[in-house]
């Protein structure tokens, strides 16, 4: 059992982790999710007593790591797969770690077999691939046969077979009653591996709930409906008919409609009754990845901007110009609105609501002229909206209580639906 209470870490003016409170329970795999730079690794290091928290505390089995008797026999960790001296063989690397913790040398051969590195054990680890490095790191974590296991991004660089192996290993370790805490930035991976999720963004707790709850709360279905291009009046007519029938309709960037609250046959009937042809009527499921992105998008630190290529010549015709219609099915600037029937994220930090901006894409039909190069330079995307106040002083803390309380429409994340049009690609 890992328990963090009000865990905070500041590096100078930068707050890496802010007031984290959570528990990692034994007997299940707990996924630790967050975008790059959200504080996952810092939290892991604090759990292991490598970094000292600025405030708060984190304990394993009720004691801080540094006070655990014979800590490596109780806690095993994969912090960084590359943390191996390249000139040292896998065997000697593990042997030195085993000796550090008083683990007999034959255990080294055992864990080498468990991770499948026995054939390259005597080779210098410099030549290891990233996947082999991950296996070596996992072997190091398993050395002491510990009850608590921490893995920081264990599937990075692994091939599909390796990913499956890690997934099964985690589940097996948890089934043996151990505490397994796995960080990742891949929601899809965690949905398959973890039983419980802890999501952080910018060092703050965004969600602490079971995977079932997360799926139930975040994956609502919707229908995509598209009327013929160049007939906006048909689209408007259909929209009003659908709304009248009790559906919720949201425009998609490519001119399609995202409809919720109505079954597909009903939509078809309504369109038929209104005498509107349909080019598309398809069922969709909002993916967990999408839900996760929506949850964390306000907390993403590293955001790409569009490459304006202002210094270069105009690209050859046929290149998609900025401002050209987005291909269908390409999650566009309409973003990921919170759909009826799904729970808005109660933990999401509320960014200062920016004025709703019109989608940058021109309406279908009025094809945009390719702008002249200097115009494009000027039309370089605006800096992404700063979603959080500068992290110098503590940002307004969201309720850090881990209990997944039923969100009573609180924090209606209207502003979360706003998405910088450029980073949708």
């Amino acid at each position, binding site marked *: 059992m890992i328990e963090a209470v009000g865990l905070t870490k500041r590096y100078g003016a930068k707050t890496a982790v802010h007031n984290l409170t959570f528990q990692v329970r034994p007997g299940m795999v707990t996924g630790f999710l967050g975008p790059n730079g959200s504080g996952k690794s810092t939290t892991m*290091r604090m759990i292991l007593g490598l970094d000292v928290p600025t405030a708060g505390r984190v304990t394993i089995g009720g004691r801080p*790591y540094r006070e655990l008797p014979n*800590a490596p026999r109780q806690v095993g*960790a994969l912090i960084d797969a590359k*943390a*191996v001296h390249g000139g040292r063989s896998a065997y000697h690397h593990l*042997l*030195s770690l085993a000796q550090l913790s008083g683990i007999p040398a034959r255990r080294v051969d055992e864990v080498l077999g468990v991770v499948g590195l026995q054939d390259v054990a005597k080779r210098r680890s410099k030549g290891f691939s990233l996947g082999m490095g991950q296996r070596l790191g996992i072997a190091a974590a398993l050395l002491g046969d510990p009850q608590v296991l921490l893995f920081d991004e264990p599937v990075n660089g692994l091939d599909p077979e390796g990913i499956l192996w890690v997934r099964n290993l985690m589940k097996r370790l948890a089934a043996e009653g151990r505490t397994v805490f796995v960080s990742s930035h891949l929601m899809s991976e965690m949905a398959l591996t973890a039983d419980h999720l802890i999501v952080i963004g910018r060092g703050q707790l965004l969600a602490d709930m079971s995977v079932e709850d997360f799926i139930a709360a975040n994956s609502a279905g919707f229908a995509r409906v598209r009327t013929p291009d160049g007939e906006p009046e048909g689209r408007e007519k259909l929209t009003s008919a659908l709304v009248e029938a009790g559906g919720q309709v949201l425009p998609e960037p490519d001119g399609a409609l995202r409809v919720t609250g109505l079954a597909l046959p009903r939509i078809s009937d309504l369109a038929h009754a209104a005498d509107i042809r349909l080019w598309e009527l398809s069922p969709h499921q909002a993916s967990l990845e999408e839900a996760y992105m929506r949850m964390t998008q306000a907390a993403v630190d590293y955001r790409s901007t569009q490459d304006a290529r202002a210094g270069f010549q105009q690209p050859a015709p046929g290149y998609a110009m900025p401002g050209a219609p987005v291909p269908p099915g390409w999650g566009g600037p309409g973003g990921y609105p919170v759909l009826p029937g799904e729970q808005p994220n109660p933990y999401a930090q509320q960014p200062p609501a920016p004025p709703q901006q019109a989608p940058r894409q021109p309406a279908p039909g009025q094809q945009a002229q390719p702008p002249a190069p200097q115009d494009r330079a000027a039309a370089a995307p605006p800096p992404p909206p700063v979603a959080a106040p500068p992290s110098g002083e503590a940002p307004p803390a969201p309720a850090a209580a881990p209990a997944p309380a039923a969100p009573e429409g609180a924090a209606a994340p209207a502003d979360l639906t706003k998405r910088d049009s450029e980073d949708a690609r």
Partner: protein
Amino acid sequence: MAVVTQVLGSEWTKIKSVRSTVWTLGVALVVTVALGVLISALVNNEYDRMSVRDRLVFDPTYVSFTGMGLGQLALIVFGVLVVTNEYSTGMIRTSLAAVPQRGIFLFCKIAIAGALALAVGMVTSFLTFFAGQAVLDGHRASIGDPGVARAVVGGGLYMTLIAVFSMGVAAMLRGPMLALGILMPFFFLISNILATVSATEKIAEYLPDKAGQKVMQVVLTDDTSPYGPWGGFGIMLLWVAAALAGGYAVLKKRDA
């Protein structure tokens, strides 16, 4: 204490399983002995042309140790790499997660590496002495002469302390480039420059290498020196202690 034995065993595994150990210590030995022999041979040829004054203060033991000025650089590299390898590979996190008592970790590491440096330093010192004296032919010193045994043992200790001092500095600085970038020019250039410039001569006498080298001299060239052979060695010990204390304080206090 069980932990200490475990960490010592682990550090021994670490140090013997990387090639840089063999390379740096091997280079230290070969360079010191080869250069010592070469310079002894040159001095031997020059001896008949030397002035009377120079002949009076001729110190065959110290002459055979001349190669140490260059050989010690390899020991500095050894000391720096032993400590900074942990940081540059990120291994330090794994190590400290396994041994949360950071003081035990650091001092066991330095004890193992220091013991190895002592063994190599002693071998080097005796080798270079006997090889150098063999070349010096008619002007040689014998290990039984007064002060010679002390100088030869002192040469081995000096090499050990240079390595340990580097480990302490490396523990403070953490990065191999930074540590080497400071230590190498310091011992190779700065300390020698300070020792030759008359204005800073007195200061240079208290630098770790200049003070420590006193122990290797049998014929004391000047009586103005404020300390004797072991006094100089004591000054070097103080430097080493300070470097280790600094390294320990940094490791203890900072996040890994």
